[in-house]
C-alpha cells in the first residue's frame, strides 16, 4: 500500500492549544471548591463569552466535554448510562454523553467540573440545546436562563430581533450580578469584546490561508483542533496571543508553499460535524487520496468570521446580538448554508463537496439530500454523501464509508486525468 504522508498541523501551536485547554479545565476544577471563579454553562454556537468576562466568569462547554470524550473513545459508557435512564436511541448523542457523564461523574481530564452558577442556554437555532439545558438544570439544580435568539428567517435580522436579543443580554447581566454577587465590570467587558474582535480578524486571516494552493492546513480536521481556544479564549489576551502565533506559523507555511501532503491532489469543502469517535480513521480515508479540506461549515458554528463580521467594542451589546443572530452557522437558515458552501467552492477553489450526515444532529442533517441535489444537479459540483454519527461510536461503518470515499475519488481522479488527456490531445493536435 502506498504510504500516506501527512503533515498534520503539529507545530508548536498544537501543543500550546493543548496547554490552554488543560489550563481551562484546571480552572474549572478550582471553581468546584468555592465557586470562584463563577462558571456559566453555555453552548458553543453563537456563544456570548464576552459577557462572562465582565464577571471574571469561566465558561463550561458541555459540547467540548462531549467531543473530548468521543475523541478519546470514552463516549459509549455515558451514552449507555443515559439510555438506561430513558433517553432514546435517536436522541442527540452529545446530550446523552453529557448527561451520562454527570450521572457517572466522568469528566474529560478526570478533574472536577463544577455545578454552574448559571445554565445559560444560548438558543441559536438548535432546538436540542433548549432540551439539553433544561435537563442539565433539572439534574444539577442550577438556575436556567434561555436566551431566545430569533432565527435568521430573512436575509438580515430585523430591528425587533436585535432589540429583543440586546434586552435579554442585559437581563443576563442583571441575573449574573445577583447570582455572583459581583458588579458587572463594563470596562473589562469592553476589553473582552475588543479581544474578540482581534481574534476574529486573526482567525479570518488563518481561514483565508487555505485559499492558497497548496493549503498550509486542513480547514476541517486541523481547524477543529484550533477551535477550542476560539471558544474558551476568544475574549481574552491569551486568545489573541495564541492566534497571533498560529497565524505566524501558518503564514510561514503558506509562503514556503508547504501543504499537508507532499502533493495536494484534491481540495474539498466539508459539510457537517466529524465522527469524533473515529476522527483519525476518518481523516486517513481522505489523506489516502491526498485530499485537503480548504473550507468547512462546521468550523463556523462558533462564528462566521471569514466574510468580514467582527465584534465591535463601541457597540458591544449590539454586535454580540448580531453575532448570535446572524453570524454563526446554526442560526442561519438552510439556504444560507448552501450559499456559504457555494462561496467556499468558488472562492477557495474546491474540487468537490463532502456531506457528512450525522444521525444525532437534525439541524445539520435534515435536508442534506436536498443540499446534495442542489450542488450536483443545479451547480454540477461533485458531491459525496456519507453517514455516521458525531459522538456515538456504534454508528460508523468503516468498510462502507471507505468504499464510498474510494469510489468517489476514483471517479474524480478519472475525471481529472481525462480532462488532462483532453488538454494534452488539444495541445498536440
Amino acid at each position, binding site marked *: 500500500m502506498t504510504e500516506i504522508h501527512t503533515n498534520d498541523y503539529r507545530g508548536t501551536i498544537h501543543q500550546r492549544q493543548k496547554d490552554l485547554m488543560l489550563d481551562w479545565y484546571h480552572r474549572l476544577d478550582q471553581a468546584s471548591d468555592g465557586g470562584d471563579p463563577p462558571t456559566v454553562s453555555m453552548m458553543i454556537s453563537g456563544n456570548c463569552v464576552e459577557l462572562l468576562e465582565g464577571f471574571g466568569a469561566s465558561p463550561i462547554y458541555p459540547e467540548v466535554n462531549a467531543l473530548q470524550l468521543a475523541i478519546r473513545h470514552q463516549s459509549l459508557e455515558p451514552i449507555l448510562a443515559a439510555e438506561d435512564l430513558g433517553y432514546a436511541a435517536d436522541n442527540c448523542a452529545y446530550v446523552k454523553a453529557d448527561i451520562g457523564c454527570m450521572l457517572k461523574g466522568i469528566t474529560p481530564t478526570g478533574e472536577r467540573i463544577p455545578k454552574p452558577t448559571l445554565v445559560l442556554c444560548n438558543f441559536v437555532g438548535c432546538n436540542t440545546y433548549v432540551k439539553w439545558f433544561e435537563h442539565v438544570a433539572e439534574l444539577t439544580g442550577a438556575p436556567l436562563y434561555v436566551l431566545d435568539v430569533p432565527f435568521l428567517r430573512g436575509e438580515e435580522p430585523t430591528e425587533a430581533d436585535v432589540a429583543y436579543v440586546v434586552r435579554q443580554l442585559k437581563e443576563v447581566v442583571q441575573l449574573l450580578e445577583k447570582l455572583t454577587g459581583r458588579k458587572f465590570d463594563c470596562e473589562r467587558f469592553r476589553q473582552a469584546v475588543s479581544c474578540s474582535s482581534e481574534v476574529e480578524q486573526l482567525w479570518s486571516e488563518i481561514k483565508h490561508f487555505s485559499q492558497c494552493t497548496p493549503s498550509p492546513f486542513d480547514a476541517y480536521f486541523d481547524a477543529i483542533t484550533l477551535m477550542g481556544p476560539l471558544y474558551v479564549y476568544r475574549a481574552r489576551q491569551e486568545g489573541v496571543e495564541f492566534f497571533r502565533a498560529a497565524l505566524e506559523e501558518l503564514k510561514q507555511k503558506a509562503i514556503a508553499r508547504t501543504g499537508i501532503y507532499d502533493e495536494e491532489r484534491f481540495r474539498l469543502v466539508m459539510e457537517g460535524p466529524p465522527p469524533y469517535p473515529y476522527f483519525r480513521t476518518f481523516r486517513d480515508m481522505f489523506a489516502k487520496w491526498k485530499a485537503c479540506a480548504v473550507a468547512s461549515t462546521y468550523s463556523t458554528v462558533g462564528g462566521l468570521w471569514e466574510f468580514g463580521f467582527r465584534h465591535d467594542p463601541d457597540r458591544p451589546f449590539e454586535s454580540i446580538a448580531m453575532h448570535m443572530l446572524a453570524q454563526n452557522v446554526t442560526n442561519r437558515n438552510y439556504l444560507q448554508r448552501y450559499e456559504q458552501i457555494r462561496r467556499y467552492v468558488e472562492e477557495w477553489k474546491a474540487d468537490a463537496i463532502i456531506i457528512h450526515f450525522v444521525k444525532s444532529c437534525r439541524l445539520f442533517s435534515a435536508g442534506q*439530500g436536498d443540499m446534495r441535489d442542489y450542488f450536483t444537479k443545479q451547480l454540477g459540483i461533485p458531491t459525496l454523501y456519507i453517514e455516521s454519527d458525531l459522538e456515538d461510536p456504534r454508528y460508523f*461503518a468503516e468498510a462502507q464509508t471507505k468504499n*464510498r470515499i474510494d469510489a468517489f475519488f476514483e*471517479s474524480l481522479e478519472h*475525471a481529472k*486525468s481525462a480532462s488532462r488527456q483532453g488538454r494534452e490531445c488539444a495541445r498536440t493536435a
Partner: protein
Amino acid sequence: MRIAVGVDVGSTQSKAVLMGDDGQGIKILSRALVDTGANVTRAAQSAFDQCCRNAGIPPQDVGFIVGTGYGRYKITFGNAQMTEISCHARGAHFLCPGTRTVIDMGGQDSKAISVGPSGEVLDFVMNDKCAAGTGRFLANAAEVMGISLDEIGPLSLRASHPVKIATVCTVFVESDILSYLAQGKRAEDIMGGVHLAIAKRTLSLARRLTIEPEITMTGGVARNTGMVQALETVLGQKLHVSPDAHFMGAVGAGLFALEKLGESFESSVWREHASSCRN
C-alpha cells in the same frame, strides 16, 4: 492475445471473469462462481482458479488481475483493486453500451450509478446501512413464507392485489408478512407487495441522481424476474438486464485489468499491493 481477470468478492458469492483482447475486440472467455464463506482469500483464489480452468488458460498467462467487492483487499494474489461502483459502471457500459444509469441490487447493499459515455462514474448513491433493497431482504421474506429464493420472483408476478408494506426493515417486515398470512392474504399478493416495496425503496434512493435511460440492472437480485418487473412498473420504463448481471462487477474489474495491461489508463488510482505475487 492479452488476458486479464476480474475477481469480485461479494458478501455471499465470489465471481471471477476471464477476459481476452485479441486486438479485434474484447471478449469474455470464462466465468466462475463460488460461495464466499468465511475465508475470503480462499474463495477469491478458488474463483480465479476455476475461471482459468474453465477457459483452459494457465494462471501464469493471465497478464493482470483486478479485485473488487467488499473483500477486494483480501485478494492477495491480485495486482490492484477498484471499488465495485467503478466496476459495475464499466461492466454495464461494456455489456449494454447505451447505459446511463445502473441500478445494482446485491446481497447486502444496493446502489444507483450515473454513468458517462465511456462507462465512467459521474455520480452514485448507496444504501449500505440497511438491508432494504437487497438480496438479504428478499431472502428473509422468502424464509418467513417457507418459499425458496428461486420461487419468490415468479410468485410475485402472479399477484393481483399486492399488499401494502410500510416498513423497510428486514426484521420487522417479518411480522407484517405473518400478519397478512393470518389475514388470509394470498402468498402471491404478499410477495408482490414485498417486491413492490423494495422496488419503491430502491428507486427512492436512485432519485437522488438524475435517472437517465438506458437503465441497466446489475447484481445478484437481477436474476429475480419479479424484481425486474416491479422496478419497471414503478419506473415506468424498461430495464436492461444482461445474462451476466451477476458478474457485472467482475466484468468491470476485468476491463480495468485489460486497460492496465494495455497501459491506456495512467493514474494514481492504481493502488498496487507491495507484493504483487500471482501464485
